[in-house]
C-alpha cells in the first residue's frame, strides 16, 4: 500500500513536475514579484528597494500624461482594429464558402501575412508607406497615397490599423470559414424556400449560428491589439511625438529606458487588470448571444 502511494507521488512528479516547475519559475514568481515591486521604488539596478505604498499607482492615475495618451491610443486602436479585422475576416470567409474556382489560392494569399512576425511586417510596411505609396501616388495622382503616412498623428494611427487588419484578417477568416461550413445546409435551404433574401439569411440565420466563432475571433483580436508591441516598434516607434505609443510600449520604456522599474511594474499590473476585465466581459457578452443550431 505504502509502495503504491509513493509510486503515485513519483508519477505525479515525473508527469506533471517539469511543466509545473517551469510554469512557477517563469510565470507565477515574476507575477507575484511584479505585484510586490509595484509598491516599491525599485530602479532595476541598486539592491535597495523601499516600500512606497500606493504612490506609483497614484502617480500613474494623476500625473502620467504619456501613459494616458498610450492608453487612449491603445483603446481607440483596439476598437477600430478589432471591428475592421473581424468584418473583413468574416466577409472574406463568407465569400470563400461560395464555390469559387480560386478559393484555395485565395485562402493562402489572405492567410499568408499572418505567418510573418509583427516586427518584420512593420519594417516591410515602413517601406511601403514611405516609398511605395508615394510611387503609387505619383503615377496615379491619387492624393490618398501621397499623404505623409507615418509623419502625422492621424495618418500614423491609420497606418497601424491598416497593417494590423492586413496581418490578422486571414487568421480570423480561417476560423469563420470552419464555422460557416458547420451551418446546417437544410436550414439555408428551408430559408430559401421561405423566400428569405441573402441579407435576411445572413442576419437571421448565419450570424446567430456563427456566434461561437465570433466569440473566439473577438477574443483573439482584442488580445492581439491590446498587447501590440512589435508592429508598433518597427512601424512607427511610437511616433510621431509619442502619439502611437501602445500601453505595452509605454510599460517597456518606463522600465527599460527610464529605469523606473517600480513604476513600470505598477503599470504592468494595471495593464493586466484591464486586459483580464475586458476579455472576460467580452466572452461573457458574446457567449450570451450564442444559439444552438
Amino acid at each position: 500500500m505504502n509502495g503504491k502511494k509513493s509510486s503515485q507521488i513519483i508519477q505525479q512528479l515525473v508527469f506533471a513536475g517539469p511543466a509545473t516547475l517551469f510554469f512557477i519559475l517563469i510565470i507565477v514568481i515574476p507575477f507575484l514579484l511584479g505585484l510586490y515591486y509595484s509598491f516599491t521604488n525599485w530602479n532595476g539596478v541598486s539592491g535597495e528597494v523601499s516600500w512606497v505604498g500606493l504612490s506609483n499607482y497614484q502617480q500613474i492615475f494623476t500625473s502620467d500624461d504619456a501613459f494616458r495618451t498610450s492608453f487612449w491610443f491603445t483603446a481607440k486602436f483596439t476598437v477600430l482594429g478589432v471591428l475592421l479585422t473581424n468584418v473583413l475576416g468574416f466577409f472574406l470567409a463568407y465569400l470563400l464558402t461560395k464555390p469559387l474556382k480560386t478559393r484555395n489560392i485565395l485562402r493562402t494569399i489572405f492567410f499568408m501575412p499572418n505567418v510573418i512576425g509583427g516586427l518584420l511586417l512593420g519594417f516591410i510596411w515602413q517601406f511601403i508607406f514611405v516609398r511605395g505609396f508615394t510611387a503609387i501616388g505619383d503615377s496615379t495622382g491619387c492624393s490618398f497615397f501621397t499623404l505623409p503616412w507615418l509623419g502625422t498623428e492621424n495618418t500614423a494611427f491609420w497606418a497601424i490599423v491598416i497593417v494590423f487588419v492586413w496581418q490578422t484578417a486571414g487568421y480570423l477568416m480561417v476560423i469563420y470559414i470552419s464555422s460557416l461550413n458547420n451551418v446546417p445546409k437544410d436550414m439555408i435551404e428551408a430559408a430559401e424556400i421561405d423566400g428569405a433574401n441573402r441579407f435576411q439569411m445572413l442576419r437571421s440565420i448565419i450570424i446567430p449560428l456563427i456566434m461561437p466563432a465570433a466569440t473566439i475571433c473577438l477574443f483573439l483580436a482584442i488580445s492581439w491589439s491590446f498587447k501590440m508591441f512589435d508592429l508598433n516598434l518597427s512601424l512607427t516607434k511610437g511616433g510621431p511625438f509619442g502619439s502611437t505609443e501602445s500601453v505595452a510600449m509605454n510599460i517597456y520604456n518606463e522600465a527599460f529606458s527610464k529605469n523606473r522599474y517600480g513604476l513600470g511594474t505598477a503599470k504592468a499590473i494595471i495593464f493586466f487588470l484591464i486586459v483580464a476585465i475586458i476579455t472576460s466581459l467580452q466572452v461573457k457578452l458574446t457567449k450570451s448571444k450564442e444559439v444552438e443550431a
Partner: protein
Amino acid sequence: MDTSKRYQAGTMATELVMLLIGLVFLVPFYFLFVNSVKTFGDLLTNAASLPASLEWGNYVRAFQTTNFPSAFFNSAIITIVSNLLLVLISSMAAYRMVRRNTRFNRVLFLLFVAAMVVPFQSIMIPLVKVTSTLGLMNSIPGLIICYLGFGVPMSVFLLHGFIKSIPAEIEEAATVDGSNAYGVFFRVVLPLMKPMLVTVFILNTLWIWNDYLLPSLILQSQELRTIPIATFAFFGQYTKQWDLALPALVMGIMPVIIFFLFMQKYIIEGITQGAVKG
C-alpha cells in the same frame, strides 16, 4: 434555368472581386521583392516600377552584414528545441491531470487556464530579474526555459481537452498486458494524441519563431541573435538603406513563408482546432 445562369454570373462576379482583394493583399510583397533587387537610386526614383537591372549583389551584401546563417541557426535551434520539450512536458502533464483528477491537479489546471489571460508585458519586468538570478540571461538554454514556462499553459490546455476524448479503456487494456504507467503513456497515449500534438507544434512554432520581445530581453550577445533581433539591430544601424534592408527582410521572411506553404494544410487545421478548443 434562368436562376442557375444568374447564380453563375453572381459567382463569377464574386470571384473577380475576391481576386482583386487578393491582389491588394499581395501588393506589399510585390513592393518588397521588386525593390529588393534594385539599385538604391532606382528604388528611390520609382518604387512601383519593375527593376531596371537585377542587383542580386544586394542579397550578397545583406547576407554578409546581417550574418544571416547565424541568425537563422539560432532561431531554428530555439524554435525546435523549445517545441520538442514543450510538447513532451505538456502532454505528460495534461495526461496526468486528466487521468488523476485530484484536487491538486484541478487547482493546477485552473492556474494554467488563468495564466493564459496574463499578457507577457505585464510580467516581463520582474521576469528579467528572475532570469538573471537563475543565471538564464544571455544564453539560448535560458531562453528555451522561458519558452517552456510561457508555452506550458496553452499547450496543456489544448492537450487536456484532447485527452479527455480518448477512452481510458484503451489504456486499461495495455495495463493488463503488463505495461507500467510510463509505457502506457509513451506507447499508447502519445501516438493517439498526434493530431493535437501537431496543432500545438504549429501554434508554438509560429509564436516562437516570430517572437521579438522575449529574446530581446534575454539575449544580448551578437552571436546569439535570432532573425527578428538581427533584423531590428540591422535597422538601427542602416536606417533608410533600403537596398540592404529589403533583401534582409526577404531573407528574414522566407523561412516562415516556405514553412507555411509546405505545412499549410496542418497550419489551417491547427488554427481551427486551437480556436475551437480555446
